[in-house]
């Protein structure tokens, strides 16, 4: 989030390592995967990761020193957007909970992009209440057999591996009967079907698991400890949200430009007042993000970040709705309803109507706004928790 404060000594050391890497592996002549492997071996993949796994155990804030130098030298990168879940969620989880053998085996192909990851958490009956997952994993010698249905899985059709949360003990209370696995997606027991959304496209998938096999060696954390592992994964997901963007970045910029270029008949006093309010709110959120980033420069993200996600979702929805009105008759049009399977979401690359519809998901995915408000109320403001009826009841006995 910030580039301030890296010790000069670390920086000089890193520069030297980059020089050495570039000297030994000229980007102009080295094959892409070979270069990425060399970078990994040099500890320059992700400098905050321990040595031996592509890093050097340095502060995360030093990574741009490497990235900027390598970028300037024309070196290939690992195309991080292709493997967002792998890099953003699987890697921290493997680092925190994986055995040395798992780290050795899984991290390199993950970082170099040889193995794309997806996440098999949510189920039709387990949305906000993730601990209610019903997908069963049953022991079978030194492996497990997994059966169940997962939803809201992005990249599942591209993925080689999945983070899987499954129930291994139905007799335990719901939070205590879960186990966490790294599942091989390339096997017959895994069926991926596109899940079409209100935008017309299928950004996500449903995944049907039928006696899918996972080795016990691919279990992350203890049997029954899946809930703790999954929470760590989800925390990693929310770190990324809310870093300081530029003024009029994203949706605000699109709508502000729509105002500036709209025919005069579409520029109503109503739309103008709403736009000014949203401009102010966007800036309030931007400065809040700056302040949070300065606070967190050294420390770990706390629950305060939840308020940023809440605000971004609200803004995106209000801005995109205003944009529909600003377009006049064109607000009634849509670009394309064809069922497509995009690799990633592109909010500004499509049309007004798409932004309006897609933004509805901002307050649902990655923690609904309702769940985030609970988190803020309980963990930031210290208000009492919700009354829980399901804490100490065996999962199999819960009403469904």
């Amino acid at each position, binding site marked *: 989030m910030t580039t301030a404060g890296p010790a000069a000594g670390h920086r000089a050391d890193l520069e030297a390592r980059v020089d050495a890497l570039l000297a030994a592996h000229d980007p102009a002549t080295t094959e892409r995967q070979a270069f990425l492997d060399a970078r990994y071996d040099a500890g320059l993949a992700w400098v905050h990761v321990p040595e031996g796994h592509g890093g050097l155990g340095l502060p995360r804030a030093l990574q741009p020193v490497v990235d900027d130098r390598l970028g300037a030298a024309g070196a290939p990168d690992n195309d991080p957007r292709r493997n967002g879940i792998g890099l953003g969620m699987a890697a921290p989880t493997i680092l925190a909970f994986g055995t040395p053998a798992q780290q050795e085996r899984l991290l390199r192909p993950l970082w170099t992009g040889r193995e794309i990851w997806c996440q098999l958490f949510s189920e039709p009956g387990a949305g906000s209440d993730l601990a209610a997952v019903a997908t069963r994993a049953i022991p079978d010698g030194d492996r497990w057999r997994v059966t169940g249905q997962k939803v809201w899985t992005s990249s599942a059709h591209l993925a080689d591996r999945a983070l899987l949360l499954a129930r291994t003990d139905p007799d335990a209370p719901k939070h205590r009967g879960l186990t966490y696995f790294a599942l091989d997606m390339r096997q017959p027991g895994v069926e991926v079907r596109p899940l079409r959304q209100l935008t017309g496209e299928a950004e996500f998938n449903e995944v049907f698991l039928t006696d899918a096999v996972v080795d016990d060696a691919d279990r992350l954390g203890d049997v029954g400890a899946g809930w703790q592992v999954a929470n760590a994964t989800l925390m990693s997901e929310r770190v990324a949200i809310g870093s300081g963007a530029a003024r009029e970045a994203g949706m605000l910029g699109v709508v502000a430009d729509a105002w500036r270029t709209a025919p005069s008949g579409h520029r109503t006093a109503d*739309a103008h007042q709403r736009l000014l309010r949203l401009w102010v709110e966007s800036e309030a959120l931007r400065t809040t993000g700056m302040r949070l980033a300065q606070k967190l420069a050294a420390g770990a993200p706390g629950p305060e970040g939840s308020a940023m996600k809440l605000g971004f979702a609200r803004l995106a929805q209000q801005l995109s709705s205003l944009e529909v009105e600003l377009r006049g008759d*064109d607000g009634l049009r*849509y670009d394309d309803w064809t069922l497509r399977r995009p690799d990633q979401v592109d909010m500004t690359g499509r049309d007004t109507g798409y932004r309006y519809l897609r933004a509805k998901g901002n307050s649902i995915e990655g923690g609904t706004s309702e769940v985030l408000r609970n988190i803020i109320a309980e963990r930031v403001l210290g208000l009492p928790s919700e009354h829980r009826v399901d804490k100490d009841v065996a999962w199999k006995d819960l009403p469904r």
Partner: protein
Amino acid sequence: MSATTGAGADLVLLPDDVEEDLRASLDRALAARCTPARVAAAYDGDESLAGELWTALVDLGLPALLVPEEHGGAGAGAREAAAVLDVLARHAAPVPYLSSAVVAATTLTALGAGGLLGDLAAGGTAALLVPATLHRADDVVPLVRHDDGTVSGSVRSVTGVAGGVPAGVLLVPVAGPDGADGADGADGAALVAVRPGDPGVDVAPVVSLDMTAPLADVRLDRAPATELPGDARAAVSAGLAAGAALGASALAGTATWALTTTVAYLQQRRQFGRVVGGYQALKHRLADLYAEVEQATATARYAAAALAADDPDLAVATAVAQSWCSEVAVHATEEAVQLHGGLGMTWEHPCHLHLKRARAGALVLGSPAAHRDDLATLVDLPPPHPDQGGSPSWT
């Protein structure tokens, strides 16, 4: 104590038995045919449902409701047509009832265009050739009428001319022949009828945000036209006014669907071992939404009753109902998507069909802002004068 009465105090806002019966039979007819999957099929190019539904509506005599009896219609009132729009909305039915049976029928009735009205009463369709968002006859951009009586010009984003039940007749506002004064008035403003199948008529369907009310861009190039005698501007005004007054009932119907569907879902759905509808934060949001939706229904019924009674309060009633119902429909369907969680984002669930109807419907026949602008004039709340800032005075 005697009640202090307000404007339109005599208007009855409750349905009578005839309306209740009409609602029930239409609801039955739609429930059997208008499934979410078939509605959604229009987004993938299959618009066959619309025709089936229209046939059902014709069987029930509904397209004839606003057509005077002397032209073969039911001569029923605006209240019944509002009820039809309300029920159609609750099923997201992809039929051009508003554009044909309300706007076009009212326009033709104002002109006394018996022949075309007879067609409508018998199940035919017509559409006014203006952009879907237009709500004031003053804002009509007329097409060009040539000396030979043919018509040229183009209009974007017209509703009711594409889809499974396209208009059989286009009612086209034109200026005098090649801009000159015409026969019917000092300025030659007139309505002419054009048949979509005729040479020189190009109807290009548009990919629409709401495919249950699909749009088309229409281009006429010396298309044959038949003039419709009468005061064209007054007729278009009447048609648009009826559309806006009754369109509010469609929006209120969409909002009602969203509220009741969401409440029903949350009464079943469990998370964290509890029925989700029991979480107080959601209860309070739904209570607020209930109040909004009830108010939407009241304003829509008031507007329909004012139209039915030709009450002097019609213009205010319409501005209020359109602006309120538009925003409530959008809010209610957005809440429906949010409170259905991921399910509301899926193609399979009907939420999105209603969300799209609300978002697009809120703009059809005038945006909420446009209707509030009307209100500012109607109730003497003039906008700030552009000079308000005052000139710098420390000189």
